[in-house]
């Protein structure tokens, strides 16, 4: 009997900026056991996608058109409690970080470094909190 291959983690991405969304997808695609199932560019689109196709983890940008990422995280955690949320944001201010965790995020990753994102996703997979090193 061969090794049991763990199921690939199903991921949704909510990011309104096309170029950065592509960069996120490319980063996640570079990790073997992850698969990007859908992409959304705002909160409404994300909730529709989740309803159709629930995922294990959602990458959420905080600055979204039509509503904040933190509010989206609150809704996701309420309706899909097993779905973890990882924030990716350019904001490094404490109140953004604090509010994200209060809303139910498991990790807060500052945009820019693929290694940070990988660390954040790994932590989420293990259901432990993570924040980028520059936020410590």
């Amino acid at each position, binding site marked *: 009997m061969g090794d049991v291959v763990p199921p690939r983690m199903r991921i949704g991405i909510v990011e309104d900026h096309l170029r*950065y969304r*592509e960069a996120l997808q*490319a980063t996640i695609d*570079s990790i073997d056991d992850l698969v990007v199932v859908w992409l959304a560019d705002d909160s409404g689109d994300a909730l529709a996608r989740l309803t159709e196709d629930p995922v294990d983890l959602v990458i959420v940008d905080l600055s979204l058109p039509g509503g904040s990422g933190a509010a989206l995280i609150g809704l996701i955690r309420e309706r899909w409690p097993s779905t973890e949320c990882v924030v990716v944001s350019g*904001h490094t201010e*404490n*109140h953004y970080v604090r509010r994200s965790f209060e809303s139910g995020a498991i990790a807060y990753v500052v945009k*820019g470094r693929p290694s940070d994102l990988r660390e954040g996703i790994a932590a989420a997979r293990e259901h432990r909190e993570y924040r980028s090193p520059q936020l410590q």
Partner: protein
Amino acid sequence: MSRRITPTDQVRDAEASAGELGGCPTTDTSTSAPGSGTARDTPDPAAAMEALADRTNRLTLVAQAAAHLLRGSEPETVLEELFDEMADTLGLEIYEQFEYGDDATPCSVGGNVTWAVTEPGEAGGASVGIGTCGLAFERVEPVIYDGLDRFPDDARAAAHREGLQAYGCFPLVAGGEVFGALCFGTRGDARFDEETVQLIRTIVDYLAVGEQRLRTESQLRELNRTLESRIEEATRDLRASEEQLRRLASDLIRVEQDERQRIAQLLHDDLQQLLFGAQMRVGLLRDDLGEAAGRHVVSHLDEAERYLGESIDIARHLSGELAPTVLDDDHLGETLQWLVEQMRELHDLDVELNTSGDLHVPNRETRVVVHQTVRELLFNVVKHAGVAQARIDIAVRGAELEIHVEDAGNGFDADQAFSDPNRAGRGLATLRQRLSLVGGGLDLEAAPGDGTRAHVVLPAAALVRDG
């Protein structure tokens, strides 16, 4: 001094007289014939009692006149009743009232003409009155004609033919201005005795003073009304200007903020995201190259990542400076907490923040003004106080939002702070001006070596949306 006119004075006064009665001679009262005194060979108790009663009546008349004319609110309304009293007491039969105008013939019949033997404008009483009052106007003193029968053919003789024996006009003078005359005539006696003249003159003077008092009071009331009206108008204009200024200031802040926000959004939503994307791609490239990357390639990647990191920092800083996204949050506590963190991160200033009351402020312009105000005050601590600690207390009390920013640093002369031409002074003056435009204020309490306490107040109206 009154003037008595007799026929024998005609030649002496011919050149001085003018008007309808041209050539009327006048003499001083002191040179006129003796009055109607009677020789009293033996005391007559009845006559003495009568004289005493007459004197009492006269004194009563003067007292009543004083009371009515000096203290009353409308002296002219009591004239008729008063002159009836005068007629009874002084034996007068004719009373005419004249007003002076600015035209060539100064006298005209005014007010009520009572007891006149003729109608105004006809020969007789009114005519003699017009002429006599003209002289009184010129001379600003009473003019009295005794024994009208002795005058040649003119208005006086006509008046005599209609029964008049003596006639006199008393100018109404107040404040150096003659504004009319009261004229009296008698058909009984051939002359007015001196005491009667003085008594009439006293009463006429009372009336003049009363009239003048009323005129002055009326002018004062009118002046007051005018002043009050002007003050009300000026106050209304001022309030309208203030309101307009406040709205303009609010619009200006809104427009400025909109533009700042637009640019900040471009920086954050576009430029920063592209830089983040580029940074991610460089990271992925580094991962893909792995061990295969040579030393030079790694060095180039390091530099590229460093440049991108610096570019992101600059874009983030610029975006934050232009329009901190925390201002989108309507809770001032969040805004100030962010500012506290910024001051600690960028300027090593440790700020204690104490909040109290409901600090939700829907009006974005107010949040902007509060943010700019506190930031400027904290910058002053960084630049001038020489300490690394400060404290902010913010609270909503009643209808006001109060903010205190204080430090225990070098302090300065607060009295000169706002007029100081250096940048700090200008900054404070600008701050105070900006606050005043939204109805707020800034006070400073400071002294060299004794720290600084800034007190900012904003009205509740500025807290609500569109306030």
